[in-house]
């Protein structure tokens, strides 16, 4: 070991903090200039932590489920009555859906409609809420040979969750639609107005750039739009909600408690527009 004089050692000790501060600023610039480097580092860490998260989650969710079933017993009666009512309503809607389905099939056969390709998807378990104070994302546990790739679309049982942004060896990260960096082209289902759904790190993302002529209604369904070829058209996103004059969307997906998501491969170009000119969205159905 090199022997330094006391003065030299003191000078070095005094220099450490300023040098490290400069390095941290350099890290910020590096992250801006080439986002791939921090992304890769993050994925290595996530891959290492994913098994730990699964190990922590298993007993915790067992406890949570036990507590939930105890709670369920207390509300059995009221829950039963509610479900009966809902079942009656749904049976009516089932009949309507069957009739519409038959009509739709007949119309499509008359139009010589090219059927949509069947979609492939993988189901993955959410192992951790990977978001920080200023980020909203979830970490998925995926196998080493999974088909999950960047740009694929994640949905839960009710609606759009987000997009896969990083894929590691054992885990993948999904940027939620509520994240600050999330921008999604959407269509308002009734008024057919186009807009951009922008996350603000709050539970409800906002609608930006709504056409001036459009008057979105409260509770109107919002679905994805095929513009920019990042999403197929018609995936359920949520419902319109006016919050103090601001247009917000209440997500259909249960983003607070995500447990299992399906990752769909729509074969789309992702955020980057496709190179081949005139290419259109391959699929346009909601799964």
């Amino acid at each position: 070991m090199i022997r330094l004089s006391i003065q030299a050692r003191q000078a070095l000790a005094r220099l450490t903090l300023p040098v490290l501060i400069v390095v941290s600023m350099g890290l910020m610039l590096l992250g801006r200039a080439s986002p791939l480097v921090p992304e890769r580092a993050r994925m290595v860490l996530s891959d290492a932590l994913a098994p730990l998260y699964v190990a922590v989650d298993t007993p915790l969710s067992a406890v949570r489920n036990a507590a939930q079933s105890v709670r369920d017993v207390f509300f059995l009666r009221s829950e039963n009555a509610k479900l009966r009512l809902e079942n009656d309503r749904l049976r009516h809607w089932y009949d309507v859906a069957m009739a519409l389905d038959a009509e739709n099939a007949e119309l499509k056969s008359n139009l010589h409609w090219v059927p949509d390709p069947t979609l492939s998807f993988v189901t993955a378990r959410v192992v951790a809420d990977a978001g920080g104070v200023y980020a909203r994302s979830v970490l998925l546990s995926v196998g080493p040979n999974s088909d999950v790739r960047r740009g694929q679309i994640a949905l839960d049982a009710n609606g759009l969750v987000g997009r896969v942004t990083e894929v590691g060896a054992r885990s993948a990260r999904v940027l939620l639609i509520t994240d600050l960096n999330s921008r999604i082209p959407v269509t308002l289902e009734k008024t057919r107005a186009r807009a951009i759904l922008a996350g603000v790190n709050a539970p409800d993302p906002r609608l930006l750039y709504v056409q001036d002529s459009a008057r979105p209604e409260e509770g109107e369904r919002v679905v994805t739009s095929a513009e920019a070829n990042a999403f197929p058209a018609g995936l359920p996103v949520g419902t319109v909600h006016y919050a103090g004059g601001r247009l917000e969307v209440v997500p259909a997906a249960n983003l607070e408690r995500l447990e299992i998501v399906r990752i769909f491969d729509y074969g789309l170009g992702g955020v980057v527009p496709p190179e081949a000119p005139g290419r259109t969205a391959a699929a346009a159905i909601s799964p």
Partner: protein
Amino acid sequence: MDKVPGIRPRSGLWHQLDVASRYAFPGVCTAVVLLLLSAPLGIAGQAQLQPSWALACVWFWSLFRPASMPAFAVFALGLLLDLIGGGPVGVQVLILLLVHGVAVKSRRSLIRSGFALVWLAFMTAAAAAALLEWGLIALLTWRALPPWPALFEFGVAVGIYPVLATLLTGAHRGVAAPERA
């Protein structure tokens, strides 16, 4: 350690290991709890707890045991926090380093004052940290951010500090004290 006169046995391997682990305790403990806080525990405000915990630990150890919380350890903790948190890398590193610098600079006057004054100083540091984080992330992502995450984070940091300070003071006098090895 050697200020008390007397004869004592030569330090063996166990003793050295003991001293080393006591020196390492603050940094390692902070990192381990940080990793645990990133696991899906289902605690409300878990995202805010991570930076608050790191901030409180860096503040406390830089004040009371700076030898166990050197700038390199602070840098590593900040990097870990940035990679876990998902924000722009480098922001937490810078904030924690600045807080560490302030704590080390002001330790001579603060260490002798009571808990209330230390807490008050921490409040100021936490407010500055939350504001700086908010501003830096807004700048780096070039987006107007709502102010409530910063406020919430500040509130969590200030709120948990008294509890943490009690626990960390126990550690400071017990497991993290190399002189007791």
